[in-house]
């Protein structure tokens, strides 16, 4: 355990822990768009920038992205100093030039008093900020169905060769964790479509509620050893069946048989 100071307050941390983790645990806030606890820190959005110093640095200071900075003893952190705010504003101007119509970016920029980017807006803006949360989560789950492709202006998230990705299981983790809701999908309860691929949904035979895609269930059966029959029912029917099973056990001591389900 080491001691570091954040905005003048002394907090404890493990040596080598990332600074953003320590800040979050102690209630200090920094905006972050590319951060997700399920995957390794990425340092992509540059918004969690903070100012650091140490007594032995004789007044020298440094600006670092807190999500990737391992803490060490005697660190002094300022999360909202003048320099930090300036740096964040620059980043937000750049983000706003790339995504001028994205609600999440506009809201965040407004918090820092920015309405319009001072840089030239891109010709055909979309909502993607290239934070790679989608591709990193997809990698972490073991699918690697999508990735960042091309360089420079042409960089984008796409499945291989822009064709429906063979490794996608339609779990929707990419779309549901996108900080700007860029990834679109449709789901009508019977089928789900994402990345140009259509999936059949598994549905509860009694309630008709969709659960997960058939491909995803098959993946879990094959790689995670979940028995196939577990996916035959939805959660509500599973609970009802559990109650009936207990009823059957209780029926051994009673002169009664378990009623058929309504």
């Amino acid at each position, binding site marked *: 355990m080491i001691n570091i100071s954040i905005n003048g307050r002394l907090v404890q941390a493990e040596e080598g822990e990332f600074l953003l983790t320590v800040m979050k645990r102690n209630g200090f806030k920094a905006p972050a768009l590319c951060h*997700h*606890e*399920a995957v390794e820190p990425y340092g992509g959005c540059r918004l969690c920038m903070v100012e650091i110093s140490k007594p032995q640095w004789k007044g020298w200071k440094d600006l670092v992205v807190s999500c990737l900075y391992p803490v060490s003893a005697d660190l002094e952190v300022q999360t909202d100093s003048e320099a930090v705010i300036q740096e964040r504003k620059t980043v937000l101007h750049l983000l706003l030039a790339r995504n001028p119509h994205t609600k999440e970016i506009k809201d965040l920029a407004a918090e820092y008093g920015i309405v319009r980017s001072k840089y030239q807006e891109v010709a055909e803006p979309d909502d993607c900020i290239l934070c790679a949360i989608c591709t990193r*989560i997809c990698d*972490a*789950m*073991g699918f690697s169905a999508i990735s960042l492709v091309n360089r420079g202006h042409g960089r984008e998230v796409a499945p291989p060769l822009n064709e429906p990705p063979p490794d996608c299981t339609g*779990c*929707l*983790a990419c779309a*549901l*964790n996108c900080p700007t809701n860029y990834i679109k999908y449709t789901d009508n309860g019977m089928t789900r479509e994402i990345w140009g691929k259509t999936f059949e949904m*598994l549905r509860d035979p009694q309630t008709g509620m969709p*659960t*997960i895609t058939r491909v*995803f*269930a098959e993946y*879990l059966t094959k790689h*995670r*050893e*979940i*028995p196939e029959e*577990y*996916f035959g*029912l*939805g*959660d*509500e*029917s*599973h*609970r*009802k*069946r*559990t*109650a*009936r099973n*207990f*009823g*059957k056990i*209780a*029926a051994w001591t*009673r002169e*009664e048989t*378990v*009623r*058929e*389900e309504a």
Partner: protein
Amino acid sequence: MNMRFEVTPNLCIGCRTCELACSFTHTIEGKQARSRIYPLDGGLKDLWVPVVCLQCDDPACVKSCLVDAIKFNVDTGAYEIDDEVCVRCMACVAACPFGCSLFDSHQNRVVKCDLCGGDPACAKFCPTQALTYKSALSHAG
């Protein structure tokens, strides 16, 4: 882990106090949570079965989680979902054979019984002792 959560369906009268207690205990920012316990009809006369996470030895939810968001809490004996890590892929909701991993659409998160961090509210409010939380050692004797 020397405490154990016990469900005794024979004592349950189906009053659903546990559901209320659960829902109010897990309130976030004024939004009530989906209850993680369900007193259901056991199919016999006057038999109610409070269906709640059994904290299995080899849980399907943990096996199905591809990002290891569900961790065992050694102090309470509960499997807990880390909401920051969860990617909402619904694998555990579909995989649990007891239907005790749930999606809370109001709070937009996947929830399951976490034994309230070692002090289950449902057991405190149960009027008939159908739900109890007591030392596993005292039970053995």
